[in-house]
């Protein structure tokens, strides 16, 4: 009950802060950084679901963002489709593609899955560059229309409305992800991740749930891509490279795979830190590289586990004298030492 309440408090507090920000600043630069943060969060949430909950990896997720962005761009500029409808159509296409490539690839594990998804990402990128008649190649697509509801047009020149739209959607996705983690489907994914044979012996259909998770993450990424395309109104293939896929994974890992909130913290760090590092030119990649290494070694649970890690450290340091007095206390050190192995 307490945990239940605490989760809702965290979500509500985060939602109020994010939705309230544009009412405290009208700095268009800050608001544009936050807008990109919202779309990145959408992608990260899907990837966190895939990697953290279902235990799959994708090194080709830029492709799904690209499919959303290009889907929206092509359908609106060439066929005059309504941007909202185009966004839905692009997401459906991304889901179908994820389903088709998911059935064979989700049977793969570890490095093989990473390679397969990486290959998929590269194929999509090559198509974006080479099928010039549709994608305009490296020139990219310009003149993508803005999203609008009636007379309310969401553009960079209306940053407050844009902010509320993007963060509204991102927060909805966050809520959906939190709900999923604590559901029958979420538990099935966690079970598959921890011990696949055990989960299947309990009636969980491994292929179905893994492919489904892959499809959800593709849809989240595609929607993020569509929003970006309509926000920036210009897209080119350079945004959807392997580097972007790696950055996406980096953010999710830095934040922490064990919890949905990891996607939130990872995204905030990945999007806001570079703004401070800009003045040092190439320092960004260096800092991210170091950050990943440090977190992998000292904080394998990611930023989201910082609180509990510090708490553990405190009991470990402070607990030393206490344990001397009270030997019946099973200290946290023992808890760490005991790592029962579940052989595959």
């Amino acid at each position, binding site marked *: 009950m307490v945990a239940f309440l605490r989760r809702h408090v965290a979500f509500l507090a985060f939602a109020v802060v994010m939705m309230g920000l544009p009412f405290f600043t009208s700095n268009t630069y800050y608001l544009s950084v936050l807008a990109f943060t919202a779309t990145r969060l959408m992608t990260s949430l899907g990837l966190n679901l895939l990697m953290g909950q279902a235990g799959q990896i994708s090194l080709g997720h830029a492709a799904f963002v690209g499919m959303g962005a290009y889907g929206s761009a092509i359908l609106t500029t060439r066929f005059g489709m309504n941007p909202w409808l185009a966004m839905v159509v692009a997401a459906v296409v991304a889901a179908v593609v994820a389903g088709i490539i998911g059935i064979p690839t989700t049977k793969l594990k570890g490095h093989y899955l990473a390679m397969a998804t990486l290959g998929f990402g590269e194929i999509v990128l090559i198509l974006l560059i080479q099928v010039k008649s549709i994608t305009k190649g490296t020139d990219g697509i310009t003149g993508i229309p803005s999203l609008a509801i009636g007379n309310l047009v969401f553009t960079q020149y209306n940053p407050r409305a844009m902010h509320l739209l993007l963060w509204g959607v991102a927060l909805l996705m966050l809520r959906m992800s939190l*709900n999923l983690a604590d559901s029958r*489907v979420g538990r099935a994914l*966690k079970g598959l991740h*921890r011990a696949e044979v055990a989960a299947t012996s309990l*009636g969980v259909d491994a292929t179905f749930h893994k492919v489904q998770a892959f499809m959800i993450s593709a849809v989240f990424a595609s929607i993020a891509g569509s929003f970006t395309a309509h926000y920036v109104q210009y897209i080119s293939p350079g945004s959807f490279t392997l580097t972007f896929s790696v950055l996406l994974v980096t953010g999710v890992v830095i934040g922490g795979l064990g919890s949905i909130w990891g996607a939130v913290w990872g995204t905030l760090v990945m999007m806001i830190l570079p703004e401070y590092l800009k003045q040092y030119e190439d320092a960004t990649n260096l800092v991210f590289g170091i950050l990943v290494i440090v977190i992998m070694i000292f904080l394998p649970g990611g930023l989201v586990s910082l609180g509990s890690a510090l708490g553990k450290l405190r009991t470990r340091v402070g607990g030393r004298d206490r344990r001397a007095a009270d030997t019946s206390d099973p200290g946290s050190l023992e808890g760490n030492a005991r790592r*029962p192995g579940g052989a595959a």
Partner: protein
Amino acid sequence: MPILKVEAVTKRFGGLEALRDVTFSLYDGQIKALIGPNGAGKTTLFNLMSGMDRPTAGHIYFGGKDIGRLAPHQASRLGVGRTFQHSKVFDDLSVLDNVKVGRHAKSTAGLLSAFFTLPRHRRDERSISEHAYHALRRVGLEAKAEEPAGGLPMGERHVLEIARALATEPRVLLLDEPAAGLNNEETDQLAESVRRIRDQGITVLLVEHDMGFVMDISDEVVVLDYGRKIAEGPPLMIQNDEEVIRAYLGEDLN
């Protein structure tokens, strides 16, 4: 009619013959044990029965249906529950959440219900919780429902696997070395649990090395040696079977 029938099952891994022409039946309401020296093919047989692997030849009938080629989740949904020799609990999930996974196939709330906590999701969650607690009570683990499963001692991890399998409402329960790592008192408790499970209408097939436990609890025993069935019968008969004694040379069956 037997509830489970293993008919002339052979399993080869490359050149290695793990099981050869094994036939036996399991009848409703029985507790039957599968014993034999290490490498006799006991776990292999469990894997075939639960869809984890497929027989090279022969059939496994469950309630008259050939289940030899089903996927694990299909075998589970038909009513074959199992535990594992090497613990496969979901370590960082709570004990209760482990058992909740066992209710997966008995509930239906899908993605949309979960995303938006629709009434169906809430209805399912209530029922899943109730059944999961019930399964924990059946094995006496309800006091540890909220603890992380990874913190349980070895014996209780296996008991948790039993609760998890019970949550799927199996008709047959396959227990792979449930008494491993238990002290005498815990073994007695386990025997009590297994009998209670049988009395509730679940047929039990177990692999076990603790001969005292096996002889005490089983209605019938099947003995495998090098992949072949060398004996089958009530415990008393097995204890005095010459071929069994030869296979177990040096081990005291009494």
